[in-house]
């Protein structure tokens, strides 16, 4: 289908829906790099106007990437629930925006009727405040050893990375995080090396700490899904299976994965049975630009590719989905403005599609961004009802060499917005004397048994 408009005497022609979507995207360097971005501000505005007139049904009839060549496209069509789609089946993209903003009901029933492309399209014509207002109404609750995503709650992933995976250094960062009230989403280590023995040691360390102090949380070592599977075969204590995922089959291939592999991994985690509440066993990470980085975007813009990754995620009922929003670098998101926009888009799209979205609010040192930009996005996502954020000592990841959010940042957000940790974890913090019963650090937390017993934390520490 052809999309055409004349504005102020000038004709604008967009040869297909994929092109229209890309040209309608708010400016970001990834789309410029891919040669997909609008050539002028007016072209972008015209594309947004034309996109608003596209019926939502069109996305079912005109797949942006043919299902014959892409298993993610096929998955999207297979997932689509006509009954759930019925209330909005007659709307255009623009009317859908109005419908979302006017409606006040729980949006969770709608998610099965939406495709990532519909959500990406409406996202492109929404302002930041629209993305926040609508996402706030999508609550997605998941369970493992605690309950994540309840209203009025904010969880954190404690990220205790170390440049050589030294268990003592990692344990020191975990202790610091726990003493600042962090770690209810997951205690998750990015290992510096994927050596099987090394990952096994880290999994054992986390398991020991969680068991010793009966911490109502879960652990993860963020290694390739095939490595986690091998370690489950060897009997390692794998709580959550991690994987980076993307929105096209070819990009997933560049990550060394496909849907069948993820199904196999989830089935294995289910058979190990460490989550007594059942099915929330996966931890996925995503981020705009990954498909382009793998030269696997098929002419689809970065934000739409990202939304398609959520179709992959929701197939596996993950405990956590984390958009690592500024991680790759300025060639994909140039500055604080683009990172902030992208974080709000990803959170909105993920939530509308029914996912437990968190955000690694972050930037690299070659991007035009700083901690002030992170403060802004942190505050905005707190208002938007984001399920979890990262907790890193001083916001400085000494292994991955980028800056994210700190334990302090989470406390700031809790204070200004009145957000509490997951209820089970909150009770544990109070029991350990770390929180004071009023959602604040206790003055007495330095006498907690956590600290006095640190040297008994693990044999690895001796």
């Amino acid at each position: 289908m052809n999309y055409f408009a004349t504005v102020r005497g000038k004709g604008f022609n967009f040869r297909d829906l994929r092109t229209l979507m890309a040209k309608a995207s708010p400016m970001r360097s990834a789309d410029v790099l891919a040669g997909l971005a609008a050539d002028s501000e007016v072209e972008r505005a015209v594309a947004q106007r034309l996109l608003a007139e596209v019926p939502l049904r069109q996305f079912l009839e005109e797949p942006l990437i043919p299902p014959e060549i892409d298993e993610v496209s096929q998955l999207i069509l297979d997932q689509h629930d006509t009954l759930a789609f019925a209330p909005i089946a007659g709307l255009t993209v623009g009317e859908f925006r109005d419908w979302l903003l006017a409606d006040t009901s729980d949006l969770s029933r709608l998610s099965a009727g939406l495709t990532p492309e519909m959500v990406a399209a409406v996202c492109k014509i929404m302002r930041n405040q629209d993305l926040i207002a609508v996402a706030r109404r999508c609550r997605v609750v998941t369970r493992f050893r605690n309950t994540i995503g309840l209203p009025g709650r904010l969880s954190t992933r404690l990220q205790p990375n170390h440049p050589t995976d030294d268990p003592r250094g990692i344990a020191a960062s975990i202790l610091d995080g726990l003493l600042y009230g962090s770690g209810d989403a997951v205690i998750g280590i990015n290992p510096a090396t994927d050596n099987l023995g090394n990952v096994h040691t880290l999994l054992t360390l986390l398991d020991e700490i969680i068991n010793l102090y009966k911490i109502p949380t879960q652990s993860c070592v963020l290694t390739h899904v095939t490595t986690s599977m091998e370690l489950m075969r060897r009997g390692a204590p794998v709580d959550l299976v991690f994987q980076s995922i993307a929105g096209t089959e070819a990009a997933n291939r560049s990550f060394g994965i496909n849907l069948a592999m993820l199904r196999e991994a989830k089935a294995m985690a289910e058979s190990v049975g460490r989550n007594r509440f059942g099915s929330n066993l996966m931890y996925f990470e995503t981020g705009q630009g990954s498909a382009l980085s793998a030269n696997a975007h098929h002419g689809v813009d970065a934000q739409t590719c990202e939304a398609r990754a959520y179709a992959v995620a929701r197939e596996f009922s993950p405990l956590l989905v984390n958009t690592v929003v500024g991680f790759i670098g300025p060639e994909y998101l140039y500055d604080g403005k683009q990172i902030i926009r992208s974080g709000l888009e990803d959170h909105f799209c993920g939530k509308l599609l029914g996912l437990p979205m968190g955000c690694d609010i972050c930037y690299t040192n070659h991007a035009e961004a700083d901690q002030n930009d992170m403060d802004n996005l942190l505050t905005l996502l707190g208002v938007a009802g984001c399920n979890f954020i990262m907790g890193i000592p001083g916001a400085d990841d000494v292994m991955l060499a980028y800056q994210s959010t700190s334990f302090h940042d989470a406390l700031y957000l809790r204070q200004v917005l009145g957000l509490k940790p997951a209820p089970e974890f909150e009770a544990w913090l109070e029991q350990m004397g770390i929180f004071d019963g009023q959602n604040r650090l206790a003055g007495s937390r330095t006498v907690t048994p956590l600290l006095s017993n640190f040297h008994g934390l693990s044999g690895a520490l001796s």
Partner: protein
Amino acid sequence: MNDPWHTLRRFTQARIAQGIVGCSLPTSALLDFQLSHAAARDAVNHPWDVDSFLGGINTLGLEALCLSTQTKSREQYLQRPDKGRCLDELSRQVLYSRNKEQIDVVLIMTNGLSSVAMDSHGLLLLEAITVAYKSSSLRLGPVCVVPNGRVALADEIGALLNARLSVIIVGERPGLSAADSLGVYMTYAPRIGNTDAGRNCISNIRHPDGLSYRAAAIKLDYLSHQSLQHKHSGIVLKDDMPQHLLD
């Protein structure tokens, strides 16, 4: 202002036990962060003295080959990763016209996002790698030195030299606590279009707080032999190296 568990900093460079005022960092910790960020920003743009680096390689008794990517400036390098993944035409000709000797491993060195890392550790790491490889008699090609390269550049260079393995040593992006880390990426059967799923990575190589040169070189030697033996690399090649090899 520090927390009582501040002594645990001997185990990690992470900014632990910084203390708290209200919900925020104490002033000194905040200002320390700002200074570190400023230094990391400057490190990204630090220039690389390639000539002196080439001289250092010759001192090690190795043949060095200086090549160029299609990147025209540091600014362009940051914004156009595609340009940093390809050789320029002249460099292609240089490699194309070489005698096709039998090469097991081609080593490529690029400053990447941190010239400081390459200047501080590049030659020392290179020396450790050649020592490790020598003891297992792998045939090395010329050491290709390429400013402003990206990881996938290793595919084109490896393919043009018909090497069985392509190994690129790259300056990792500067972080706040360390602006001088090197990373190593190894690819079996390098060809243009290979994906990251086909690469093995060794990261955070720096002295004294990261992975040591020797440990990195032993790991690379181990992975290289595994790769040549099983005829693949990347995700399918699991790193099961026994710890005692490092003793």
